[in-house]
């Protein structure tokens, strides 16, 4: 069971609380987590990764275990505490004005 924390606008969009749990099969990676997230909550498709490139949107950040994992490869393993469900994987709207 993977714990994921979403930014508030995406909670509203998906109609969920800030923290949700996901079942992720196989290796726990950024790609696997977001694939599982989008499968469970189709309203979130395209909001975290660009449809065309499948890359992280520029103003989205991924944090866990007090590290910025935004620039990690999508198929790199996430930290063991995230894979074990001890620590949440934070999907964050970057600090930006506008």
């Amino acid at each position, binding site marked *: 069971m993977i714990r994921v924390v979403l930014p508030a*606008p995406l909670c509203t969009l998906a109609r969920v609380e800030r923290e949700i749990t996901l079942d992720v099969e196989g290796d726990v990676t950024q790609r696997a987590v977001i694939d599982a997230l989008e499968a469970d909550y189709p309203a979130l498709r395209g*909001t975290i990764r660009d*449809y065309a490139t499948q890359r992280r949107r520029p*103003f*989205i950040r991924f944090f866990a275990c007090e590290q910025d994992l935004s620039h990690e490869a999508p198929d790199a393993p996430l930290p063991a505490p995230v894979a074990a469900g001890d620590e949440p994987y934070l999907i964050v709207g970057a600090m*930006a004005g506008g």
Partner: protein
Amino acid sequence: MSKVRVLVGTRKGAFVLTSDGARRQWSVEGPHFAGWEVFHMKGSPAEPDRIYAAPGGGWFGQVIQRSEDGGRTWNAVGNEFKYEGEAGTHQWYDGTPHPWEFARVWHLEPDSLDPDTVYAGVEDAALFRSTDGGKSWRELPGLRRHGTGPSWQPGAGGLCLHTILLDPQTAGRMYVAISAAGAFRSDDHGETWRPINRGLRSQGIPDEDAEVGHCVHHIAMHPARPGVLFMQKHWDVMRSDDAGESWREISGNLPSDFGFPIEVHPAEPETIYVVPIKSDSEHYPPDARLRVYRSRSGGDEWEALTDGLPQRDCYVNVLRDAMAVDALDACGVYFGTTGGQVYVSPDAGDTWAPIVRDLPAVLSVEVQTLP
């Protein structure tokens, strides 16, 4: 008794304003999609309680929402806008080829008869259609591929397809407008397209009467007379009496012929409205006086409508999709400003009053006339 529902898209959410036919007392609901930019929302003429909305923004991209209860509650529908085949390139600001990239939806146009069919005009300029109520979208690629597409170049606001007009009398005929490419017409349900810009003159492009490259800001059509089109161009207000085959200028005595929106009175096809703006660098009204101009002669001769509008120290803009008219006997005219005001005139423009004064910057205004 009839009532009206005004759909307002703003920089930070959407608002629904409702009133009875008198249009004096208003209720304000919102913000819906708080924090999201809502470039446009529009109701289905066939099922008025079905409303499509296009919230988006820099953080989370574009989503599409649909309401089945007149805007009280909303559900996400499809938001994948994928260009057909090889997307190709258009010109970038520096003249180099730039890949076509989806950025946002500028305009949603529900079909007049089928509530499940809706068109989306997007940036980078393309036209999409959904026939399942917005769940899935398919590009009509004939527009980008008709020949001049690779030469299109974005204006300051991006290469946006912002106007979609569906001809209610000629089956399959539709118009779109793109900044800064121009106006285009299809006579076969959007399969094939051709530019319709003859008569436009734009001093900001090398060949001022070129086939494409004109910064069309908005086009309006009266549904009972769809062969007559009115256009607010970057500069110049224009008119076509032959379904866009040719255009002539009707700016006449306007204090400035720069502006964004243009609308037609629902019962008087020769009565049109514009909001003159000082210039493309000064996006506020001439003399700091907010004036709607009305022509009752289809252009050339214009009168200023000022009663109830600020006539000093006013520096707001009115964007291209931020004006609308209702269908009541005494026509209501509505517009929203970048200062967050939404004004109504319940008497075809003679007098005005603010419905709300302090919304986020208004991006779009549509109105529904309900039984």
